[in-house]
């Protein structure tokens, strides 16, 4: 037994930190209805701030701590509350997108403020040990962390249980309107929750950084360990979340006793994510989203209304029905095809190495398109889409042959791998939606990252594997231009197919499964088949994109497909416009621009700008496209010639921008949402 004790103590030590994080996550979820994907990023930001105050500027801990906990953390909490307040009651999709945006923004802002050099944070407790029993030593830092964590957890529990804040919180959660009427100030309660949660994050940050390293990505990732315990407490129970975290910490630690290398080590590292995925699948239908019943649509559905008499409308619908989508798609398809034709000539204009960057943009657009279909059209949020790209790239690396002569075979095999994986990641969607589905896909991405891509025989380990340029039917695509043209043609074919599908019966089916799954099922739609097919097909096309991604890069490592790449993909797609094919093209273009050799001093602002753009546009399914369209209309309405003035009509109402803009905006996004 005695040989287990050290591992149990280490497990309790880390588990108690995750417990604090889990409580912080639960606290804002149950009071505000926001699941904070950015929790780790907040902890990370606070840890860097503390490092700056204490280690860099040399302030004593007695000064730095109060500044962190009483000034920085509360300010951050207040800022977050202000950010989320206008989003109250919006769809899970919007809230997820915003919190992923916050994650990315904090991740981008820290290197800008604090620089990129390596650093370590000194533990706040002495690291010396004392003997407990005969063989076994405990560090003061471990003991101190455990004691602080328990004390703070107990304090929060008592606060919610025995004070007015607790009852107010419960009232504000159960029925915000009624609570307001009886004098509970919902805003105060929510602000307090955000502040408390952020203070917890600060504590987590400074407790965990000394052992996990003061590193942006590492800290963001580590706090995801807290998500499984939070789900274990059904995102509402603080004690269950805390206890779950302790148990998880101990189990992971005990496993590490046996796992030094190989598969077991990978599984050990991925255990929290496996636990998260399993918990979500098992708890399934019993998980309820906070405030789901009172959700409103993120976009108000306004439209210009019908034009023409009922007879004309009827005739037009008859025509559209008979001719199918051919009638409707003409104009947009023309624009698309002209654009495609012009794009074919890009190699003439940009012959140099920059053509590779443009090809990256094309391939990325293809990958982004799968997320548009999956999330924007079918309403299934995925934080794992780039994992399929990895599947494609590594498969291409293994099977393409030394000169890429088997590229086609590799692409087919990659898609064959991706299909069952797509079904696997889609399985939770049968019983979960919105937030819980997003969490399950995130767990899937982390599992792929840690268990599959980290294997040497899959990815070649840290050094990666090489991927040859493709050779198809004897045609070699080794040259930049030929590879570009190939990728462009594939993108064009997939985009046109997606567009045709969107306008036809399958597009309608995706839409109705998204709008009202229950109603769709009672009308005869098999939800299981529909969702799984969408996940599988989108995964397959993403894997196809992955084969190109690999061939383009010529060498791929597990880092290229880390879990966070899927988040980046989501952010770029949201920015471009998640309900539009052109949104995917914009996502690709933005990605391509990021690849350009821009000086780091400028380039470091790029991710921040993207994150802020996403936060601003989270509610807009057409993203930048909608923004551009709106601005264009606004400008056009000002530039329009004045109406001819009637003689002597001095009191004629002038044409102002107002009504025009209203009408322009009134063309609701979804009406014009057949996108290209």
């Amino acid at each position, binding site marked *: 037994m005695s040989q287990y004790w050290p591992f149990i103590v280490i497990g309790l030590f880390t588990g108690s930190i995750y417990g604090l994080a889990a409580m912080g996550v639960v606290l804002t979820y149950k009071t505000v209805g926001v699941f904070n994907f950015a929790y780790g990023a907040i902890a990370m930001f606070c840890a860097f701030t503390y490092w700056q105050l204490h280690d860099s500027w040399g302030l004593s801990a007695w000064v730095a701590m109060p500044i962190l906990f009483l000034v920085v953390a509360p300010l951050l909490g207040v800022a977050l509350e202000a950010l989320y307040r206008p989003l109250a009651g919006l769809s899970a999709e919007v809230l997820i997108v915003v919190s992923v945006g916050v994650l990315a923004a904090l991740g981008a802002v820290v290197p800008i403020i604090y620089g990129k050099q390596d650093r370590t944070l000194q533990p706040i407790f002495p690291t010396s040990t004392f003997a407990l029993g005969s063989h076994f030593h405990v560090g003061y830092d471990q003991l101190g962390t455990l004691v602080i964590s328990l004390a703070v957890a107990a304090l929060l529990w008592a606060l919610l249980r025995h004070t007015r804040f607790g009852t107010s919180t419960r009232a504000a959660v159960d029925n915000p309107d009624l609570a307001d009427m009886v004098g509970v100030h919902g805003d105060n309660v929510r602000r307090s929750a955000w502040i408390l949660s952020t203070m917890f994050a600060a504590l987590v940050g400074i407790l965990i950084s000394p052992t996990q390293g003061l590193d942006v990505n590492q800290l963001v990732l580590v706090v995801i360990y807290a998500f499984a315990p939070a789900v274990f407490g059904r995102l509402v129970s603080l004690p269950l979340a805390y206890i779950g975290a302790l148990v998880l910490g101990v189990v992971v630690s005990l496993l590490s006793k046996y796992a030094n290398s190989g598969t077991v080590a990978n599984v050990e590292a991925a255990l929290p994510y496996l636990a998260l995925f399993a918990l979500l699948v098992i708890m399934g239908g019993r998980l309820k989203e906070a405030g789901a019943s009172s959700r409103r649509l993120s976009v108000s559905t306004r439209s210009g209304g019908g034009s023409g008499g009922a007879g004309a409308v009827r005739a037009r619908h008859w025509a559209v029905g008979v001719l199918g989508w051919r009638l409707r798609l003409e104009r947009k398809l023309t624009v698309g095809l002209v654009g495609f034709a012009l794009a074919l000539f890009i190699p003439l204009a940009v012959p140099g190495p920059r053509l590779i960057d443009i090809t990256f943009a094309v391939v990325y657009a293809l990958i982004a398109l799968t997320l548009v279909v999956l999330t924007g059209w079918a309403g299934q949020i995925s934080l794992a889409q780039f994992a399929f790209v990895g599947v494609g790239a590594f498969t291409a690396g293994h099977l393409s042959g030394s000169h890429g002569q088997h590229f086609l075979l590799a692409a087919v095999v990659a898609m064959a791998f991706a299909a069952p994986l797509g079904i696997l990641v889609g399985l939770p969607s049968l019983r979960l939606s919105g937030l819980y589905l997003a969490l399950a896909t995130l767990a899937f991405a982390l599992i792929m990252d840690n268990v599959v891509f980290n294997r040497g025989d899959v990815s070649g380990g840290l050094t990666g594997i090489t991927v040859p340029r493709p050779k198809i039917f004897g045609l070699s695509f080794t040259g930049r231009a030929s590879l570009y043209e190939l990728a462009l043609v594939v993108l064009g074919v997939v985009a046109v197919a997606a567009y045709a599908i969107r306008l036809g019966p399958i597009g309608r089916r995706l839409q109705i499964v998204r709008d009202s799954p229950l109603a769709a099922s*009672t009308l005869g739609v098999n939800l299981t088949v529909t969702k799984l097919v969408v996940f599988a097909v989108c995964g397959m096309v993403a894997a196809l994109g992955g084969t190109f991604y690999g061939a383009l890069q010529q060498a791929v490592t597990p880092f290229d497909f880390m879990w966070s790449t899927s988040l980046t993909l989501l952010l770029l797609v949201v920015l471009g416009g998640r309900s539009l094919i052109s949104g995917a093209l914009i996502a690709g273009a933005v990605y391509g621009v990021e690849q350009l050799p821009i000086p780091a001093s400028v380039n470091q602002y790029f991710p921040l700008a993207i994150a802020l753009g996403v936060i601003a546009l989270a509610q807009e399914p057409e993203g930048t496209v909608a923004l551009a369209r709106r601005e264009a209309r606004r400008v056009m309405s000002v530039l329009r010639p004045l109406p001819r003035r009637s003689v002597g009509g001095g009191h004629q109402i002038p044409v102002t921008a107002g009504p025009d803009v209203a009408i322009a905006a009134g063309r609701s996004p979804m009406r014009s949402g057949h996108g290209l």
Partner: protein
Amino acid sequence: MASETGWEGPVLRAADVTMRFGGLVALDDVSLEVPAGRIVGLIGPNGAGKTTMFNVLTGLQVPTRGRIDYLGDNISRWPPHRRGRAGIARTFQRLALFSRLSVHDNLVASWESSHPGAVLGRNRAKRIERVAEVMGLLDLWPVADRMAGELSTGKGRMVELGRALCTDPRVLLLDEPGSGLDAIETAAFSAVLQAVVSDGGDRHPEVAPPAVLMVEHDMALVMDVCSSLTVLDFGRVIARGTPSQVRADANVRAAYLGDASAV
């Protein structure tokens, strides 16, 4: 389908259905029948279990105990979509429109959902004909291009009815079709409903008009259209019979208390 083989019994039959949620008994040994060509009412105070009964009949909830027969087949284990395809259609008390599709596309999507192969583009001509027919019957052409999500409740209920009709149902389950409707809309709805039941609202003699089971609080509407009523209270059947019999029933008056004057 059994209908083509000359099934003569009730279209839809629930036998001894019990539904428990933990300690709460939402339905307690409820049985009811919907005969062909009839409009049957399911009434009772709020929380009596009416919507739960609809969910059980359409397969959205699996009952703790009991059996559902449809055209003589035991469908207790059928998933919702199979029941929908077989001809059981419903509307929802809280509107469940496809809010980001146009009214017309709501009906088109419904037809495509319920007809095999339609999602791959088969039978387009039939679809156009049937959807146009239902649009006309329910007077939906004036709002054909409007987004369903922006309609008034009254129009929304019409779209839900139209959506249900586009599945060519043999039985139509209407969950409070009259709530949120003003007097004129209610009268129009009542007229449409009777037209639907008399000739199916279409010109296909081979398609039998649907039977109807409806939950409704508007007693005037219920008395107007229903040929028989089943009354639920706290999950139990407390009365059944013709509207006039139910109106006279002492149990029903007691259950409704303040509502008694309305019955």
